[in-house]
């Protein structure tokens, strides 16, 4: 049996109420108002960091050396050349003996990656393949997309043992239907007329793929506990299910008014939400949208009960903070060019050769642990830092990214440049030993105190626009849930 063996998700902490966006720019386009809120990545998050967060949720104690494939699906790759999946694999401290690929350029790339991962495991060429789907798309200020697009990520592990939901079949459609597009030189998506998208694309392809799958496997809507497909227009979403013969209770909640349309990640995030509620024997039908559609048929097994302990969608949804201002949103997304001051302008060159040499230390947050005295230490040392030990060359690699920690001391710095001042940072003591100074993110100064528990989160450390560098590192955050 081949299928999903674990799942995880990530929704950024911040939400922006669509009324806040409308309040700022609704005067430009009075018809753009949508209900609810959408999830927005913090200034130091992007599709890649959110993918790592969802993967950390999905790993949940899985032996990382067993993973031999990682596929990253997104339309918002930070790099157009430099494999983004490879950055994720390094951040997760996976073995270099692994196949990695980016699946991109369509929001159905998430299900595409899932089907490919299934095929790899089913064919026997890989044992455990991680699929991460994440998006952080930009709508042009004042436009409809800006209200629609939300940020988030989902991760699924595919394998052939401990399967919680087996993949029973799939049916795919591919059309060069250009409803949304973004050329190489574009920052924002462009779009054709909504009515045409709704009636000729969105309203048709999902139904066509689902019907194709039902015919292919001789199934009917009644055979499924849940049907999962993304929402582009709230009313049209309900109509698709109804027309296919699904009852309201079978249609998975689209979360459109809670997080927005999270692009490539969206369908898989909804699938994670469905798995959180699933019972053994449930059949789930998943269909994506974007230049066609992929429909996938899953059957939940008795192993599902073992996969409950994770944040997934439910806990991430419940843990949120209102961003408050539209100006903050456009600053975080680098839509508004702010005055960083002279201090913020001075960015030293990034040395790729150093990053390569120290990749496990920087991207993987790996230090070392002394074989003689057992002291974990970061960065990795050759000579033990314990003054009572001092052993030379007796170190094993030791990963800190998955260790809990406590905040030993901190400050909120107004002088240091940060797109979200004050720059909060502090000394972090890891459970089991080891300490280091880290930036603290997803936190406000008045909610922080000495001794509070923290966890590590992979973030964008800086964006050197003039040299085209998105630099990544780990930060500490208050325990999210």
């Amino acid at each position, binding site marked *: 049996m081949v299928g999903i063996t674990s799942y995880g998700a990530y929704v950024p902490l911040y939400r922006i109420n669509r009324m806040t966006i409308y309040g700022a720019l609704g005067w430009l386009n009075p018809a753009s108002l949508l209900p609810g809120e959408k999830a927005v990545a913090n200034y130091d998050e992007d599709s890649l960091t959110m993918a790592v967060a969802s993967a950390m949720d999905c790993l949940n104690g899985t032996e990382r050396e067993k993973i031999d494939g990682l596929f990253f699906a997104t339309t918002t790759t930070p790099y157009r050349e430099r494999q983004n999946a490879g950055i994720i694999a390094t951040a997760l401290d996976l073995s270099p003996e692994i196949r990695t690929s980016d699946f991109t350029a369509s929001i159905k790339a998430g299900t595409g990656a899932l089907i490919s991962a299934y095929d790899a495991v089913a064919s026997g060429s890989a044992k455990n393949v991680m699929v991460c789907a994440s998006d952080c798309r930009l709508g042009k200020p004042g436009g409809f997309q800006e209200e629609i697009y939300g940020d988030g990520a989902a991760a699924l592990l595919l394998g052939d043992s401990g399967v919680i939901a087996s993949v029973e079949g799939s049916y795919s459609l591919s059309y060069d239907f250009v409803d949304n597009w973004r050329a190489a030189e574009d920052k924002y998506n462009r779009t054709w007329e909504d009515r045409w998208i709704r009636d000729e694309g969105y309203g048709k392809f999902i139904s066509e793929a689902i019907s194709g799958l039902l015919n292919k496997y001789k199934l009917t809507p009644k055979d499924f506990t849940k049907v999962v497909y993304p929402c582009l227009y709230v009313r049209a979403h309900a109509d698709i299910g109804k027309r296919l013969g699904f009852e309201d209770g079978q249609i998975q909640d689209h979360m459109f008014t809670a997080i927005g349309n999270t692009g490539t990640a969206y369908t898989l995030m909804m699938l994670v939400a469905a798995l959180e509620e699933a019972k053994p024997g449930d059949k789930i039908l998943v269909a994506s949208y974007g230049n066609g559609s992929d429909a996938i048929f899953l059957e939940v097994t008795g192993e599902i009960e073992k996969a409950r302990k994770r944040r997934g969608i439910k806990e991430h949804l419940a843990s949120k903070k209102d961003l408050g201002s539209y100006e903050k949103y456009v600053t975080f997304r680098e839509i508004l060019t702010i005055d960083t*001051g*002279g*201090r913020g302008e*001075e*960015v*030293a060159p*990034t*040395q790729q050769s*150093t*990053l390569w*040499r*120290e990749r496990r*230390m*920087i991207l993987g947050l790996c230090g070392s642990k002394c074989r003689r005295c057992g*002291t974990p*230490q*970061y*960065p990795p*040392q050759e000579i033990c*830092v*314990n*003054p009572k030990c001092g052993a030379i060359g007796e170190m094993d690699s030791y990963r800190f990214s998955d260790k809990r920690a406590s905040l*030993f*001391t*901190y*400050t*909120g*710095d*107004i*002088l*240091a*440049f*940060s797109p979200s001042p*004050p*720059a909060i*940072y*502090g*000394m972090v*003591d890891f459970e089991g*030993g*080891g*300490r*280091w*100074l*880290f*930036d603290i993110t997803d936190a406000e*100064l008045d909610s922080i105190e*000495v*001794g509070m528990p923290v966890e590590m989160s992979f973030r964008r*450390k*800086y964006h050197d626009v003039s040299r085209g560098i998105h*630099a990544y*590192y780990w930060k500490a955050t208050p325990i999210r849930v």
Partner: protein
Amino acid sequence: MAEGIKDKVAIIGMGCTQFGERWDKGPQDLMIEAFIEAIEDAGIEKKDINAAWSGTCYEEVSIGKSAIPLAATLKLPFIPATRVENFCATGSEALRGACYAVAAGAYDICLALGVEKLKDTGYGGLPQNDTQMGTSLRAAFPNFTPPGAFAMMGTRYFAQYGLSPDEGKRALAHISVKSHHNGAMNPKAHLRREITIEQVMNAPIVAWPLGLFDCCGVSDGAAAAIVTRAELAKKFRPDPVYVKALQISVSSGEELMFTDWDYAHVETTVNASKKAYSEAGIKSPREELSMMEVHDCFSITELTVYEDLGISPRGRAKEDIEAGFYDLDGKIPCQPDGGLKCFGHPIGASGLRMMYEMYKQLQGKAGPRQVKNPKFGLTHNMGGIPPVNVVSTFIVGL
């Protein structure tokens, strides 16, 4: 057995520029200003100098690398010259080089000169330098500033000793008020006005819990010293100042990476001062020291230095501060010249500026700030941030 440096070296001349925002002066002008005062004070000529040490930290915004700017600006006649850098302890490092050179008997007269031209960056605070902790650490270190790195010591000190933010900040405020009082009497100081506790408490935050008046000035300036072997000193002047101890301690990495350190004290200060007391033959610093100039880059630094020097008991510096122990008329006046807080902090010059005040005080030339009959003066010059730093401690006397 090593003998140490006690009474082997004498300072026979010193110079120090006006510190401050010297918009109209370049680093070369500042070097010349300090140098002329120092050789005139020593009563020597340039040709009498056998070797020189130049201290600058931020060469990027100052004079550039190497000792060439010093030699070429002063037109030193092809003598040995070396540039040293050890973060904010750079000035003391320059003086250390000169002292050991004459103590070794290699030279008769040496020059130590520290200079920094900080006010050419276009923004406040110290120059931004992403790679100052090294290029790999740049990728793995918060984008910190010095106020932030020291503010974390305030947060931790308050937590460790059970002080509310208000109590802690109030104790720190006393330190700054005292230094402003002294600095206001110093014609060469950068910041020359008295302030009140309430002003300090209400000032805008720079890095929580430190506010504007918890932070020292960012200044331009230079300072210089002429040193000679002790036995030659009286040929130059009747009141040379003798080096009684000269110690330096550098972090081992343990504070930053091993969980024993409390971030409420500076381990290098403890080490350097213990060795300095032993070298100088001081048994009880609280009883024997007459005055000191310590590295008060931030008020919290000065507070912890009181304890790390073994003068105030651990966790109880607040009591001494509030009792006026470190005031100009207290038992051990601290920062009689206003300190980094008010005299200012042109990095490379600061260690030498501290010594300049001790030297003038010991000679009885400190004017309205004169400490009564000083015997031993201590300088404490710290470079880096609490978890990783360099501390240099000098003790001098007549």
